[in-house]
């Protein structure tokens, strides 16, 4: 059982980490929106909800530190919401930092679940901010309070408003407590007592304003404390819940009549204006909704199968755990999309399941019935959402309320009398035919399920399977071309239907190949979001006002490319902000530009490549300054004539920086070098356009995928190799008279019109069986790896073609110059050469030749080449 428990917790924690990760992304999105000056209160509420979710789940999976931290953040946010705290940049920064910190902690927790995070610093900061601002605010607050009290006397309506807010506070706090009660370790009295603290605070706060409510709240708190001190927390739980309801009811009664027996959930949901719910839901991203639906259906299916197991084997804890997990997942995902009923019902089910797990109740009779009904209802609701009915229908709403009430009833340790009472009430409501209805619904629902199959439009697949699929497609393409190019076809009459069929086959294979490649594509959205975040942070740090625009964040790129493009983009954005945008606004105004700098990031597809453009409207590159600096750093000689392109290319040289002093953001001359390196690793290219005083544009071109390269097939003896075309400058025929061998050593040189390049013979380097006798027979490729140029002698050049890169087994992947393999059109393996390591390999061999002249190996090699 204990092992089972551990596994269970582990599983929960993993899903928790994933979930929080997603939530954090959404939080930073919203924060950015808020910072843009969107004053909408909804944003704030959303964030509070998110943090609340994280807090709840964190304590559920036993990350208490995380939970306390979220609680602190929540405190801060709530203070802002109720107006105790004005939103200021300082707080904004703190919120951003908090999300970052959470992200860090998550990463650490991901690798080590026992990691104990230290939020001390943050918590202190948050508390400081809350206190500092509260100290400045009380006067204003008191003013508004007295105003409200005056108004209270004036009209009944105002009283309602007033009561609403206060009660809402009570309800919110109670709800909070109720939730925490579920998660908190029941045996830990101290943490239980901590839960009740907000109530006493509230009672304190309300003493003057609303003594009656205050008294109730205080009583509530006392009750809570007293039941915590007893040993039967679970038992008292329900009573206490009732107490809250009663209190709220007493306050509500003059305004609205609410049936006394209705449970707290009803009260809470009725107190919230329903329109708000729908408004938010409609705003929900369609993708999120799809994800949720796919996920929920999947989870419900799991629940279904596990419930069947439970029906037969009520003591199967594994099945129970699985159901628990499913409901937990459903709960959190529905909370994000604000499907409150689903969230609440799942929560209730969790409570019920906890009792089952602890062996307090048995999975039989009423409990079994309830579980099944609850499952059916959830399914019904999810189907409803699938059909586009975001707001639940009246009947379903009623059913939700009923079932939740029944679950609560059960939790109160099954007091039979009460259950009876409720049944009576239900019947009085005129829903006596409920069970029949239910049966009818189930049948109907089955129909729906069979008729609407294309509901799950999302599926998660492991990369490994995907790669296997793509491999197999690759094989199919080769097999197809072998068939359609088979010489045996020549003996078949041209009007044979086989050619038509082959044409069809060809078409299908092509489209299959395309689909295969598209499976790995992901949008650049996330990358762009990170960039926006960086723009924000850096511009804050530099004290520059910058507006940003992004275009084409939906552009799809291969997953591997997305992972690698991030770093260079970050560096470039930082550079544009630091060097590009002018420091003082006067300079900008003088040049007729707006005070705020403008940064644009665009992405698009063009001809098998992705183009990413980073454009600023800053001061532009200063050619004279660059040249001066380059001469200073001895990167170029004075008097050297350079084209504009050459000058701009200088900024990518390692160690080059025009910054006067090194700052935290740039100036060391490392950044742009990194950019160039990374882009080259991606087989990409970078261009700069700049005009002094107007701004700079960086244009990056990267191939759509890392999985495919364009390469030249070359032949050495009988072996074929592929050289990526990006490294090939040109190919020329030379004769022996152009070769010179200085100092009569092994190293040869090709004398060309405008340059002298070291000559390398691939055949000799790779020890082929019959290396070429004379350079006149072969052809020379000029390879260029960012300035390092060599002449490579090969026997023949065959053709240019696209190749799918395949990883080499670790046994053979350390050969100098070989970066990978590919499958050629005839199904055989071809090796891909990489210029940089190839050049490196040659150079080290050259050094080797020079240093070990006595080595017989070298002498022998020379004879071979002769």
């Amino acid at each position, binding site marked *: 059982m204990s092992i089972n428990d551990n596994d269970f917790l582990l599983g929960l924690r993993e899903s928790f980490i994933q979930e929080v990760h997603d939530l954090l992304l959404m939080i930073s999105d919203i924060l950015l929106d808020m910072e843009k000056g969107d004053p909408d209160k909804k944003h704030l509420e959303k964030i509070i909800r998110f943090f609340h979710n994280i807090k709840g789940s964190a304590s559920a999976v036993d990350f208490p530190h995380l939970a306390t931290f979220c609680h602190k953040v929540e405190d801060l946010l709530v203070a802002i919401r109720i107006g105790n705290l004005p939103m200021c940049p300082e707080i904004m920064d703190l919120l951003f930092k908090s999300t970052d910190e959470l992200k860090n902690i998550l990463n650490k927790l991901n690798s080590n679940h026992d990691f104990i995070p230290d939020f001390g610093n943050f918590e202190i900061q948050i508390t400081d901010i809350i206190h500092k601002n509260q100290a400045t605010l009380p006067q204003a607050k008191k003013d508004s309070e007295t105003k409200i009290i005056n108004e209270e006397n004036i009209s009944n309506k105002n009283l309602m408003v007033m009561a609403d807010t206060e009660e809402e506070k009570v309800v919110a706090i109670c709800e909070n407590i109720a939730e925490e009660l579920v998660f908190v370790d029941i045996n830990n009295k101290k943490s239980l007592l901590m839960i009740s603290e907000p109530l006493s605070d509230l009672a304190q706060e309300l003493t003057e304003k609303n003594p009656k409510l205050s008294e109730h709240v205080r009583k509530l708190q006392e009750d809570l404390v007293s039941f915590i001190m007893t040993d039967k927390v679970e038992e008292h739980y329900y009573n206490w819940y009732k107490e809250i309801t009663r209190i709220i009811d007493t306050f509500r009664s003059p305004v609205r009549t609410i049936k006394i027996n209705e449970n707290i959930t009803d009260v809470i949901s009725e107190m919230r204006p329903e329109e708000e719910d729908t408004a938010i839901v409609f705003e929900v991203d369609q993708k999120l909704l799809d994800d949720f639906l796919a996920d929920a259906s999947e989870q419900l299916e799991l629940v279904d199968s596990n419930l069947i197991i439970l029906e037969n084997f009520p003591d199967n804890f594994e099945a129970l755990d699985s159901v628990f997990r499913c409901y937990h997942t459903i709960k959190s995902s529905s909370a994000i999309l604000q499907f409150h009923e689903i969230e609440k019902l799942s929560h209730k089910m969790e409570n019920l399941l906890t009792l089952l797990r602890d062996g307090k109740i048995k999975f039989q009779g009423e409990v079994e019935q309830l579980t099944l009904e609850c499952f059916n209802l959830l399914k019904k609701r999810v189907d409803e959402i699938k059909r586009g009915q975001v707001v639940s229908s009246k009947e379903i709403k009623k059913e939700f309320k009923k079932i939740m009430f029944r679950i609560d009833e059960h939790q109160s340790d099954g007091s039979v009398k009460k259950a009876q009472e409720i049944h009576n009430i239900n019947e009085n409501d005129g829903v006596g035919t409920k069970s029949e209805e239910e049966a009818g619904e189930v049948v109907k629902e089955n129909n729906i399920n069979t008729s609407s199959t294309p509901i799950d439009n999302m599926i998660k697949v492991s990369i490994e399977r995907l790669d296997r699929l793509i491999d197999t497609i690759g094989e199919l393409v080769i097999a197809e071309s072998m068939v359609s190019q088979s010489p045996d076809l020549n003996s078949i009459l041209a009007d044979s239907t086989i050619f038509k069929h082959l044409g069809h086959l060809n078409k299908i294979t092509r489209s299959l190949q395309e689909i295969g490649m598209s499976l790995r594509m992901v949008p650049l959205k996330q990358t762009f979001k990170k960039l926006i975040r960086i723009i924000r942070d850096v511009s804050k740090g530099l004290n520059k006002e910058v507006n940003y625009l992004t275009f084409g964040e939906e552009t799809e790129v291969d997953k591997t490319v997305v992972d690698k493009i991030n770093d260079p983009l970050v560096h470039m954005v930082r550079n544009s902000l630091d060097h590009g945008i002018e420091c003082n606004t006067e300079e900008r105004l003088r040049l007729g530009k707006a005070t705020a700098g403008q940064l644009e990031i665009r992405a698009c597809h063009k001809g098998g490549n992705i183009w990413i453009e980073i454009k600023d409207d800053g001061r532009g590159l200063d050619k004279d300054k660059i040249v001066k600096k380059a001469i200073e750093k001895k990167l170029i000689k004075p008097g050297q004539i350079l084209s504009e392109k050459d000058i701009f290319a200088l900024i990518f040289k390692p160690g080059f920086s025009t910054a006067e002093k090194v700052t935290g953001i740039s100036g060391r001359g490392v950044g742009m070098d990194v950019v160039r390196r990374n882009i080259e690793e991606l087989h990409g290219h970078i261009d700069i356009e700049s005009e002094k005083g107007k701004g700079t544009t960086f244009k990056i071109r990267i191939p759509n995928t890392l999985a495919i390269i364009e390469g030249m097939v070359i032949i050495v003896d009988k072996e074929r190799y592929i050289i990526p075309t990006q490294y090939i400058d040109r190919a020329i025929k030379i004769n022996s008279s152009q070769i010179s061998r200085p100092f009569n050593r092994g190293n040869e040189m090709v004398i060309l019109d405008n340059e002298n390049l070291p000559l390398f013979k691939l055949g000799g380097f790779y020890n082929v069986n019959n290396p070429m006798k004379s350079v006149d027979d072969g052809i020379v490729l000029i390879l260029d790896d960012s300035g390092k140029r060599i002449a490579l002698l090969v026997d023949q050049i065959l053709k240019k073609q696209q190749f799918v890169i395949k990883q080499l087994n670790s*046994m*053979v992947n350390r050969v*100098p110059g070989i970066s990978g393999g590919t*499958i050629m059109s005839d199904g055989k393996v071809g090796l891909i050469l990489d210029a940089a390591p190839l050049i490196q390999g040659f150079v080290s061999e050259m050094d080797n030749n020079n240093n070990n002249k006595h080595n017989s190996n070298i002498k022998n090699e020379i004879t071979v080449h002769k």
Partner: protein
Amino acid sequence: MTDVDLSNKPGGSHIRAQAGKYLTFRLAEEEYGLEILKVQEIIGLMAVTRVPKMPKYVRGIINLRGKLIPVIDMREKFLLPDVEDTEKTCVIVVQTQTKEEKLIMGIIVDTVSEVLNIGQNELEPPPSIGSKLDTEYMLGIGKVHNRVVILLDIDNVLCETELHLVSNIGDKNVGDKNVNDRKNNELLEETNKNEKKVVNG
């Protein structure tokens, strides 16, 4: 020396082999066996692409349904005399486990014989005194109906191959060399011999 002493000695002559099914194959005059669970499949010899700067026993890379896997020439690996490939020459695709990863590799053998069930009482330890070949490469010896099957520890055979490669690629003069279980001073001699071979060839 008692049996107990021997089995305690690491690399000593205790039986590491377990009773069960073995795939047997021939190499020169001897019959060898591989644990059946290590074997993924058996394929005919197909076009092999040579990888330069690799020892001779690495025949090259083949395309196994879209995956590139290296193939090892077992004759070269065990320093047996070269023969021409025949119709019966085939590649046994094995899954090996090194310390860090799982590798799929092919081994080229003269011919595959059968799947043999070897019982516990048919297993015998390798010779107690011998070179590394005898001790580390062998799980044991199977004696079934007067036949002798050498049971290979394929993980050790291939994993060692890999380790050896890693240490040598950094070396400056890796050509086509056979350096297996010789000590360092022998290694130098061997290198020179091989290089002469290259020149002559």
